[in-house]
């Protein structure tokens, strides 16, 4: 009986604390919960981040052969080679290092088609902004896949990924120029 008197406050106190925790949980549950698309977008960034090398074959309709884009990250900056052009990618910025002078928008498009770091950064900016990541179920080169738009402004850039692993298959670009690139993780 005496032991019960000693134990009761601790059991009762723990139960009351659990009630407070439940109320705290309910308070937190008033926050918005991420959509499945946003969660997949976050996972996709981790997939892109996990691979520091990315090979891309860029395909434009008027070209007979696909251009080969090779991407490698060195000291936090990504270097993308598209033919003879070299593009440096850092965060949301893409800069033409060498090659014929091009408008900045073209440089960004080129980079988007082959730079995993830039794709991840754009996806991240979307997740932190007001837009959501909305996956669309598509068939890509005969395979079931998800496609989600990575950018908010300008021509549509969509990342095409495998449904479960979210491994990137390629990037689709649709503006005045339609093109796509095939991605291969290194």
């Amino acid at each position, binding site marked *: 009986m005496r032991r019960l*008197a000693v134990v*009761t*406050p*601790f059991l*009762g*106190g*723990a*139960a*009351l*604390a*659990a009630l*407070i*925790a*439940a109320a*705290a*949980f309910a*308070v*937190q*549950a*008033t*926050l*918005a*919960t*991420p959509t499945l698309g*946003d*969660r997949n977008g*976050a996972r996709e*960034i*981790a997939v892109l*981040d996990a691979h520091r090398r990315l090979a891309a074959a860029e395909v434009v309709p008027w070209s007979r052969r696909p251009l080969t884009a090779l991407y490698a990250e060195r000291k936090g900056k990504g270097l993308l080679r598209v033919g003879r052009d070299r593009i440096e990618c850092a965060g949301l910025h893409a800069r033409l290092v060498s090659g014929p002078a091009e408008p900045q928008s073209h440089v960004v498009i080129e980079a988007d088609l082959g730079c995993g770091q830039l794709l991840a950064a754009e996806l*991240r900016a979307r*997740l*932190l902004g*007001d837009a959501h990541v909305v996956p669309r179920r598509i068939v890509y080169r005969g395979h079931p896949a998800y496609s989600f738009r990575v950018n908010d402004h300008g021509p549509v850039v969509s990342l095409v990924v495998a449904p479960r692993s979210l491994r990137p298959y390629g990037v689709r670009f649709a503006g005045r120029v339609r093109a796509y690139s095939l991605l291969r993780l290194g």
Partner: protein
Amino acid sequence: MELTSPSPIAAVRLRPVRLSRERARAYRELAAWWLGSRLLVLAAAAVVQVAGWPRAGWHPSLFRHPFVLLTWWDGRWYGIVAKRGYLLVQGRFSQTAFFPFFPVLERAGHLLGLPVDVAGVLIAHLGFLAGLLAAYELARAYLPEADARRSSIYLAIFPFGFVFSMAYPEGVVLPLVALAGVLVLRERWLAAGICAAAATLARPEGILLAVPIGACALRRWGRLDQWSRTRAVAAVLAAPAALGSFSAYLWWALGDPLAWTKAEQAWGRSFSATGVYRALVALAEAPAHHNTWLYRDAGFCALYLLLLGVALRARLPRSWVAAGLGMVLLPLASGSFTSDARFGLLALPVFWGLAVLGRRPRVHRAVLCAGPALLAAAMLMIPLRFP
């Protein structure tokens, strides 16, 4: 130096809860200090924005985005949590490093029609006013009235106190910490536990409130009845339970109960046994990494430790000093001094120690002169370095 202080139990018994004339006068004085110090912060923020410090053209117009400075840095992250909830991106900066209570309040303000940023700054300001009054009430239990009043005045004009005007949770946690202390002395155990839980949901330092609450419960255990003991145990466990509820929420929302510690790693923080050593190494290597701002935080850390020492010497409650010590030193175990100046603002015994030193008129005058000047000057730091 006077080292005696009334016992907390006697203080609670002797002083009526109703608003005495002395208390009303103190409240008015503290409200005036709050108003003056916040006007100073707002004016400095406006000057920095209009002057375009440190780079012209970087700041949005004062008329379009008034006091945008107060919503920068972590304020943006809390705003994102309020608008979008939590999302964890492994290895990158993520919202899950930011505790939920302040964004919940921002969201509530938004539902009432305020923009999230405005709601955040408004809540922080009002919370700070409540915090100054509650801190005064708590200090009165341990210090003579003049010292208690001085401790809150020093808090109002403390140089790093500009954080209490930003869309940061410190403005909300301060009144919760002080109220938990006041309520526990009045044996309002459950209310104290709820305050401790809310403080923990806003900042992880809140969990350290379990120390003074536990010490008070232990001291009074013998004369408590069963039901009071039960509530006292609940009050002690409330803060850890709230932390557990945050993990449970992240598990439910993101499938990862430790998402908040993982997100901290992206900021270079991870708790380990060698954390303090890593923090000291980082401090030594700060100039080489162009991170001399770390000395600002290390300097404030040293000041806080000194003032906690004064509080201990003045025989202020050891449990509160221990909690304050935890608030100042535990972040170092994550491997960095970064932001320690801000974390220490919630350690109330620091300001009790300063109030004890302020019994000397020369010290008092020096604090009253230097405090507001440094507070205004500190606003210049916001565009350069996060608090």
